[in-house]
């Protein structure tokens, strides 16, 4: 059996190259456990998912920089971040579907561009130098901090001529109606080309830095494409799962997924998201978002300095 030549960990390589998780580009099985224990990774995923759910900023944009600052490479941390994104997306999906605020047609349309970006990002992130990835991650953290601190929503006006039977997306168009209390609010997508361009950038961010890109997608949908904030947020929760899965398929083939650490992230991510959603009603999301934005700025500075 081969010994890993890339890290100080001397754990033997998997005996079969190209196994389930593929062979990594430099013939080393990246082992997250060599740097951080699975328990620590689980706790980190739980805390960041809970905070992300509380502040609406997402957990991966906190988790990935924290793991990198703790000593993990971006190449190792990005798949873990994406797994927390998918886990959170799946866990939150059921609740948002119940609120009838997800527009699947808008989601799939924008997701085509985002997936193109995420697959591209995942493919090239495997060959980019670590320093470039760290700087990119720091820029992403700063962008998320900025987006989280300045969130505004475009308000679409309710239509008194619409009833409960009108709620839902429409066949053949990027149009829909969603319930806002007792009101029914119609909406339609505008500026689709610009929106798709931003989605491609969001996908690229996901594929390279391991963050969901939701801090780009939701404002792009709500403020560029004029989708109501609630629909944009719910649809984004649906699409970030697809974007992350697309990148993870590439990363799995590249051999970058550590099953043991991944289990901790999935468990912590789902648990934290559930806890965060339960506590959310009792706290001020705006205040938490500002606190998280400040923390992201600090983390970004640390990343830039250490890069």
């Amino acid at each position: 059996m081969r010994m890993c030549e890339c890290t100080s960990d001397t754990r033997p390589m998997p005996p079969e190259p190209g196994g389930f998780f593929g062979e990594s580009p430099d013939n080393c099985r990246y082992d997250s456990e060599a740097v951080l224990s699975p328990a620590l990774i689980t706790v980190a995923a739980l805390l960041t998912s809970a905070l992300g759910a509380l502040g609406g900023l997402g957990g991966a944009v906190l988790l990935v920089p924290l793991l990198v600052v703790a000593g993990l490479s971006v190449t190792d941390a990005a798949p873990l971040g994406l797994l927390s994104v998918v886990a959170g997306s799946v866990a939150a999906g059921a609740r948002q579907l119940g609120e009838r605020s997800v527009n699947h047609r808008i989601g799939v349309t924008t997701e085509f561009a985002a997936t193109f970006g995420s697959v591209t990002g995942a493919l090239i992130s495997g060959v980019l130098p670590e320093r470039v990835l760290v700087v990119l991650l720091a820029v992403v953290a700063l962008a998320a901090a900025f987006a989280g601190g300045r969130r505004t929503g475009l308000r679409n006006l309710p239509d008194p001529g619409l009833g409960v039977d009108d709620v839902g997306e429409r066949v053949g168009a990027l149009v829909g109606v969603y319930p806002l209390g007792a009101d029914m609010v119609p909406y339609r997508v505008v500026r689709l080309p610009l929106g798709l361009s931003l989605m491609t950038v969001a996908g690229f961010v996901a594929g390279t830095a391991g963050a969901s890109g939701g801090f780009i997608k939701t404002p792009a949908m709500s403020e560029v494409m004029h989708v109501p904030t609630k629909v944009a947020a719910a649809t984004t929760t649906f699409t970030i799962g697809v974007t992350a899965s697309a990148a993870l398929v590439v990363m799995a083939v590249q051999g970058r997924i550590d099953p043991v650490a991944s289990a901790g992230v999935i468990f912590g991510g789902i648990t934290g998201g559930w806890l965060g959603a339960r506590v959310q009603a009792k706290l001020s999301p705006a205040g938490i978002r500002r606190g998280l934005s400040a923390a992201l700025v600090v983390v970004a500075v640390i990343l830039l300095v250490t890069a």
Partner: protein
Amino acid sequence: MSPHRFPVSTITGRRQRVALRAVSATAWGLAGLGVMLGESSGVVASAAVVIVVAAPLVRIAWLVVRWVQERDLRFVVLGLALLGVIALGGAIALWGG
């Protein structure tokens, strides 16, 4: 473009909700078991990863089927193209690696 011009989609999300709850509970359980087993959790942990990663993709495939039933061919093509891009990415990673 008034919503009245287009028929309301019959996709309410009811079946998706049930499926998503089952998937997240299963993934959570397997992942938790994986955390407890630690080093020897390879199969269990891998199963949790596969379930979580596959769930959104299966959801897209299911939406494509529903859109075929609604005869919304534009979005059927989009959905299939989306799945094709993902498959292509995996294929490129396989051949390039």
